[in-house]
């Protein structure tokens, strides 16, 4: 099967690649572009470890085809920190011990970014439902929810 040529933007950078038509965007990211901060936990859309932003919208990279990135703008975990350092969400995850093994963390941070971009002041229930697509097996979510609350506060103060 011949490969498809794709032009897209990832974390502000123009990227070109060839992919198989049936290849998931997650596979392209991880195995071909070696952007491996985005994780695979299930490849079926159930765990959120592969969360990325597609034109600002939260999607599972494993449910998206590589060819669907054509002409779009994507943000991955590698694009969350800025030249000034960690994003406040990342900082709060650290301070609140919101990661244990850390495999779910990139997905949670990207999902949290999408939430706070949309709703800067979510209550606990909103946070819990928004993050319900991201599985964490280590933390019991308590410290993750607190980190998100703290990040929201921090961002509100910065604004």
């Amino acid at each position, binding site marked *: 099967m011949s490969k498809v040529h794709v032009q897209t933007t990832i974390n502000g950078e123009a990227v070109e690649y060839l992919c*198989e038509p*049936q290849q998931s965007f997650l596979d392209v990211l*991880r*195995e071909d572009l*070696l*952007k*491996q*901060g*985005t*994780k*695979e*936990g*299930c*490849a*079926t859309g*159930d*765990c959120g*470890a592969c969360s990325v932003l597609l034109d600002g919208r939260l999607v599972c990279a494993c449910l998206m085809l590589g060819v669907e990135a054509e002409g779009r703008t994507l943000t*991955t*975990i*590698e694009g*969350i*920190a800025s030249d000034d350092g*960690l994003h406040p969400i*990342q900082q709060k*995850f*650290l*301070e*609140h*011990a919101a*990661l*244990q*093994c*850390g*495999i*779910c*963390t*990139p997905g949670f*941070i990207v999902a949290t970014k999408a939430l706070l971009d949309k709703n800067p002041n979510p209550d*606990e*229930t909103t*946070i*819990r*439902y928004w*993050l*319900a*697509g*991201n*599985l*964490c*097996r*280590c*933390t*019991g*979510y*308590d*410290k*993750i*929810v*607190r980190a998100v609350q703290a990040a929201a506060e921090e961002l509100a103060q910065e604004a």
Partner: protein
Amino acid sequence: MAEAVDYKYIGTSPVRPDGVDKVTGRAQFAADQNMPNTLYGKILRSPHAHANIKSVDVSKALAMEGVYAAVSGADFPGGARGKVGGEGGGDIGDVARNIMARDKALYHGHAVAAVAATSLTIADAALAMIDVEYETLAPVLDVVAAMAADSPLLDATNFTKNLPETPDKPSNIASVTVLTRGNVDEGFEQADVTVEGEYHIPMAHQGYIEPHACTATVNEEGKATVWCSTQGHFEFRSMTSKILDWKVGDLKFIPAEIGGGFGGKTTVYLEPVAVLLSKLAGRPVKMMMSREEVFRATGPTSGSVCRVKVGAKKDGTITAAKAWLAYEAGAFAGAPIGPGAMAIFAPYVLENFHVEAHDVLVNKPKVAAYRAPGAPQSMHAMEIALDDIAREIGMDPLDLRLKNAASEGTRAPYGPKFPAIGFKECLEAAKAHPNYTAPVPEGAGRGVAAGFWFNIGMQSSAEVRINEDGTVIIMEGNPDIGGSRASMCLMAAETLGVDYERVKAYIGDTESTGFCNVTGGSRTTFATGMAVVQACEDIIAQCKARAAATWGVDEDQVEWEDGQAIPAPGVNADVTPMSLADVMASAHKTGGPLLGRASLNASGAGASFSVNFVDLMVDKETGKVDVLAFTAIQDAGTAIHPAYVEGQMQGGAAQGLGWALNEEYIYDADGVMENAGFLDYRVPVASDLPMIDCQIIEVPNPRHPYGVRGVGETPIVAPLAAAANAVRAATGVRINDLPLSPPNILAAIDSD
């Protein structure tokens, strides 16, 4: 002897040293390893739960363009039919057969062949070209039926171990464990109330979010390097060496960051296969399991049937207890019946008890360790029985447990007397907890249960090196699965008296650090922590000697305080104190660089007890459970990094609640797991849970320099019965089986 002391660093919760890489996506997990020229390895799995393998032919796959290696059981030492492993005890032989079936497929998903190809797509196509001829057999799926004399057999050469008489017929019962004291019949005669029940719990999976993955590369000299996701790379090296019959020295294992394990990554699945494929292909081979493979072929924990009978007097004194346990081993012997039997009555003073536990083969995946292996299943039964007794005699469930609680000097059911333990302290703390004194919310039910785990020590090594600026490098060999680098740094900072920020911890591979047993059994902070403390003490001794030499005084005239060598009080020396950096500055004159080391086989891990209580609401129309509040109280000995101790308690609570409320392996009649994905095997998500309130009790373990007990395992134990007891309180209906899922709750309410 550890006492309640004020520490400077221990007991604080700083940011972990590996944190930044883990929030930015830089951290390298096993599937993130890349090497030029890598092939992808994939495994062909049995479509039958029980079948004889008549033949496996990989030749068509091997002939395909882009396929560089293909193997089946016949390519491993021992071949398709011979004895595997060559070790006494046979365990490693079982692991060898588990990672690649030989003459029999023993569960749906059992590996039967593997290929290495230039792409995942080609590897998948190649698997489809492998011919396997099966002769299907009746699957054995029910643990009690499997024990019957007329059950089909998984292994016709299995004769039950540990029976008084060697049996003359083979059976699916791999072994029996009995634990007994006093006279149970007399004990029951003294009882005013007796409760009795049979409790069923299905298999559950550890559910780590990172699937198993590894990359192996074997060079032309026959030396292998393996990157993998493991809780213990030294043990992985040893298992791989035995399974492949390779020299240990020809195998180097590098632990990647690990995306969760909970016991499930203490044994190999892919690594020996990847090494063999790489050897045959002459190229690196990367293997990554799909989530479905993780469910079908890696370690769940045992499903179980427990029958328990408990008798007590009106005042709450337990007079006798009896338990019969049957645990599913899966396809090979090894269900955690020993710990299950030893744990079930461990929290209580008991004069008369009898436990009989069975390790039973069934056509399901070979079980692997899962957090406090064996304890949740048996203690679920006991803690429910106690709840029923408390209700019958009209006693608060915490008071009932306090009445019978084990404490220092109590003889544990498994023999020895307990040293200092914190169970009573946990119960008292629960009674006084504002969440417990608060009334149960209208319509909800509250359930209480206790938990316990032994904790273990075992072998650890650590090295501590000092840089010329006085910063400290720790090198040890326990993969950091939940923040252990931070705990190591805290203990080193405390011992040396230097700032936490000046200490870094690294996890060495099998060739850059001394042997360490697995990260598991709640041993890392305890045992490896002890090695780190001793290595730091080694550094201090060296610094004192060098300061003495520099000052021209005796070594015993030098003390170590706040990170520097100082003259002992009364020593008349006009000298400037020497910090680590000062010692390093003159190290070229005083004996070379500072290198501290320690290796040990730690004993004296202290048992950790817990008390949990949960408030939950049951929707009687749908059977859905809403968890309103959860409180976890546990004795940690000393909490080195309290935030990560809480993290263990909260994570264990979530796993325990998941197992209690929803998680289960569902099998069809052919032995095919019907829910091998996160959509249908439902682990708790954020919206299923409330905040999990933690109270850490600190009864220091006298056998650790800072009083550590180990905390990782105990938290999963109590939530099972706590949830079941809360559902009983909320609905008035006692449900003995897990999970307490909507259909099961509805069925119980309807039949009541």
